Every structure is written in structure tokens, then in C-alpha cells.
């Protein structure tokens, strides 16, 4: 028998199995699909990215205010005037990159089942 392993036809015969036709499998899988619904929409990832970035921004400022002698960021959080923000808003390219990377990270965690 040992030499048969080098014979393609013989090996194919040995490894070929009967069909598995099981209605229960199909039914339970369809139930699972019905429960899970459609794939997550892109705006869920965008919303998650926005939340993560906002919390990150706040956390960094708060930590800076707490652990450094230059609490410049604290008033920026608390006494923020929306009008001044929109007039003078300047988004550094690095911030855009951080938001994009956060979006990609959150998307890839679900897409590739990283968790």
C-alpha cells in the first residue's frame, strides 16, 4: 500500500467521500443568517472612529492637564466657544491621518475577526 501514496488516482479515490446532504445544517445556518442580518454599514465604523478619536482627544488633554505644569488644554475643553472653533478650525494632516487610521482599525477588527 505504501507505494500507492504516489499514485494520484489511488489517492483521489481514497480521499473522495460521499456527499453530505443535511437539511438541518442548511436550516440552522439560515436561522443564524436571519439573526445576524446584514453586514455592518460603513457609517457605524465612521461613528465608532469619531467616538474613539473624541475620547482620545479628551483623554490626552485631561491627562496633560493632570500630569503637567502647563494646563493649557483644560480651558480649551471646558470653556470652548463653538463660534471660535469654526472660525479658526485648522485640522493638521496628522489628525486626519489619525482619524483615517482609527476608521481602518475598527473596520479591520470586524472584517478580519481580529478579536
Amino acid at each position, binding site marked *: 500500500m505504501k507505494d500507492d501514496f504516489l499514485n494520484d488516482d489511488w489517492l483521489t479515490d481514497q480521499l*473522495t467521500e460521499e456527499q453530505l446532504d443535511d437539511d438541518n*445544517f442548511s436550516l440552522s445556518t*439560515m436561522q443564524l443568517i436571519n439573526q445576524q442580518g*446584514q453586514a455592518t454599514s460603513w457609517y457605524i465604523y465612521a461613528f465608532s472612529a469619531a467616538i474613539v478619536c473624541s475620547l482620545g482627544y479628551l483623554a490626552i488633554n485631561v491627562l496633560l492637564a493632570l500630569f503637567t505644569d502647563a494646563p493649557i488644554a483644560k480651558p480649551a475643553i471646558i470653556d470652548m466657544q463653538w463660534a471660535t472653533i469654526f472660525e479658526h478650525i485648522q485640522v493638521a494632516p496628522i489628525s486626519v491621518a489619525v482619524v483615517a487610521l482609527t476608521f481602518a482599525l475598527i473596520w479591520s477588527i470586524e472584517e478580519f475577526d481580529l478579536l
Partner: protein
Amino acid sequence: MEANLIERVQQSGEHHAFEQLMRLNQSPIRQFLRRLLQNEHAIADDIAQETFLKAFLHIKTYRGEGKFLSWLFKIAYQLFVSHTRKKQALTNAEIEDVADAINLENQFDAQRTVKVLIKYLKPEERATLLLHFSHGLSHQEITEVMNMPLGTVKSLIRRSRLKLKTLAEQSETGANS
């Protein structure tokens, strides 16, 4: 027929069309996983279900390049790899010493078939062998399923066949002594 079903699912997420697609493809996927998981049927079927769920959710990413079954095999193999990573202990317990393994199999003489012997191959060796001989995938298709270079796939198939041959020799020697 299959192309039409895929198109219906891609365009309108039609559940009935997907169910038909699943009926057409469930057997090879489940058999592949059962062999990969060494006949742990319940776990294999769980992963098969997950494969079809993932296929349904991401069917728009299937662009019709290559067989639909190969695309399903790719998802199934990724889920299998992910499962074995989570179950590191299982992988570590893999029997490396073939002679010892054969001695452990009390009924090895009676069960000296390919189905028993492939248990002793490494998962990636088992996967390439099954995809090629049991499911008729070409070397090129296996490279896409397993995300490996062509040379590695060819080498894995060759190595696993030689390993099976050696296992059979050892089992015969063991039986004669």
C-alpha cells in the same frame, strides 16, 4: 445556475438564493473541515456554519474570479486557522513522533487507511492534500485558498505524500515485528 444565484444574493441579499448556494456547496466545505479537525464533527459544522454566514455577509467582495467553492474554502480555511490559534493547547498536543503515534493506535492494523494516516499530518499538509485530491483544486487555486506561494503548496503536497508513505511503511514494519 450558480452564477445566477450569486448575482441574486449580491444584488438583493436574497436568502432563498443563498440557501440554494449553500445546499450546492455544503458537502465539500463540511467534509474538508471534518477532516482538518480530525473528525470533530460538531466543531467542524460550527465552523462550516460560520463560513456560510461570513460568505453571506461579504458576498459582494466575491468578484467571480475563480470558483465560488474556492472562495468558500478560503473562508473556511481562515476560520480553521483562527480556531486552531485560539486552541493552542490542541496544536501543541499534536503528535510529532510517528512511531509513538502508531503504537498509541491500538486498532491501527485494522484501520490502516488513508483516513487514519492523514491524522498525523500537520494541518497545512492535511489541507493541501485534501483540497487537491479530495476536492480537485489545482495548485494555483490552493495558493489562493491558503494564501501561500505556489512553490510552498507544491512542496507541502509532495511532503505530505512522502510522509504518508513513510507512515504506511512504519505501520507495516510495526505490524510485522
